[in-house]
């Protein structure tokens, strides 16, 4: 008899990104000679149109590889790096960034839910508030002048670097007693820790504070298109006391709801360009698959340091671009 809780192997989703990449890359290469022959107007670096989505795919593939071992989502790398070094306007980059984070969260969601590392009871109250506030964030972000958003993005990214470099993690936080709200909502659970070979029971504390913090996180996610795993995990783990693995899994699940709301705002505003969004999503998803396989080979601490350097450069670039110092 099969165990209903055992994560199933899903051949289609694992093969789909790879097939997608081949199809997209071949399509772009196939039409490249026409594009070159058409005497394309030189804009930005004076390159043909197809160079940029192809470069975007390659960069996102690389970002996807390092994102997994570094323990960050794709969105937080995507927006400052692509926004800083590609010719696309930040409005379109943020729209694509949300979709990158959303696609990664959707792809990871089913297995996380099946093994109990994403918990619906823990996620839903937080996600309702965060997704509502992400709509506000998206609307504000699209209404503000670009330079202001760019400057705020730079400051936010540099703050994220500081948070990532300094934040401690607690694999199994001690929660002596649940708070009244989490007890009333019956937010608690048990998951099987394969590494330890035992079942871990967990409960949470400070749920009202968690709700307030997630409301703020939603605004930032919508405003900058960053995803928000960098903030979700510390709040779930350090503030609310959920085990690290449950925090990471539930964070990813919350992202799937929060980024859906914000993504719809960008879609309805016309801020999603397929030429930017699709190669980014495809590249990041394929890269993340490779990254997950390299997890045992790569030294996570080295990759994490590399990502922190990348984020620092991208954050400074966004800040200086916003201030008009380095256009």
């Amino acid at each position, binding site marked *: 008899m099969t165990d209903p*809780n055992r994560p199933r192997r899903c051949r289609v989703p694992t093969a789909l990104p790879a097939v*997608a990449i081949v199809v997209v890359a071949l399509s772009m290469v196939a039409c490249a000679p026409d594009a070159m022959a058409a005497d394309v107007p030189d804009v930005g670096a004076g*390159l043909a149109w197809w160079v940029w989505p192809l470069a975007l795919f390659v960069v996102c593939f690389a970002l996807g590889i390092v994102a997994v071992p570094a323990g960050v989502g794709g969105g937080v790398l995507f927006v400052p790096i692509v926004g800083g070094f590609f010719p696309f306007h930040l409005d379109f980059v943020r729209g694509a960034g949300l979709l990158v984070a959303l*696609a990664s969260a959707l792809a990871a969601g089913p297995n996380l839910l099946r093994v109990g590392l994403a918990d619906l009871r823990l996620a839903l109250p937080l996600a309702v508030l965060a997704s509502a506030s992400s709509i506000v964030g998206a609307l504000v972000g699209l209404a503000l002048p670009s330079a202001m958003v760019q400057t705020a993005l730079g400051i936010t990214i540099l703050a994220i670097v500081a948070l990532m470099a300094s934040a401690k993690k607690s694999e199994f936080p001690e929660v002596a007693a649940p708070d009244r709200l989490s007890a009333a909502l019956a937010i608690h659970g048990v998951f099987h820790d394969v590494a330890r070979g035992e079942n871990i029971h967990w409960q949470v504390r400070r749920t009202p504070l968690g709700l307030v913090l997630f409301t703020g996180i939603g605004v930032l996610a919508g405003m900058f298109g960053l995803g928000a795993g960098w903030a979700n995990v510390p709040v779930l783990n350090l503030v609310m006391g959920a085990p690290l693995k449950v925090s990471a899994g539930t964070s990813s699940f919350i992202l799937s709801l929060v980024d*859906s709301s914000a*993504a*719809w705002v960008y879609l309805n505003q*016309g801020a999603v360009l397929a030429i930017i969004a*699709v190669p980014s999503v495809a590249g990041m998803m394929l890269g993340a698959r490779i990254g997950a396989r390299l997890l045992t080979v790569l030294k996570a601490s080295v990759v994490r340091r590399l990502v922190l350097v990348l984020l620092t450069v991208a954050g400074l670039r966004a800040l200086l671009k916003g201030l008009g110092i380095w256009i």
Partner: protein
Amino acid sequence: MNLPERPVVAEEQLRYARVLEWGARIGLAAAVAAFALYVSGVLPGRVPLEELPALWSLPLAEYLQRSATPLGWGWVKLAIYGDFASIVGIAILASVSVACLAAVLPVYARRPDRVYLVLCILAIGVLVLAASGILVVKH
């Protein structure tokens, strides 16, 4: 040594996972297939590919004006073009969570777990509000 029995995962989580898995597959496949047709020239773009480099660096308001891109759900009527056909897949990805939440409603209703039933309805409401196109920024 007796290994501990794996904990049972709640019925609603398994149901949510099933819908999420299929929805994400369909959305991603639709987006990639339409994009392949778009960049290969089979489905022409409403904005010609060669003109995009002159437009994608513009602020959103200027891009919308110069490309005559409609706001809200106006893009659906343009899905015959490659660039907007790709958006259909993206819209599916952004809508999957509504289907997942709707799928677990009967579980909470049957139990009954009124608080989570209401939370699910609220979550659906927020997503539908975001998708409705009511909330737009005037440029």
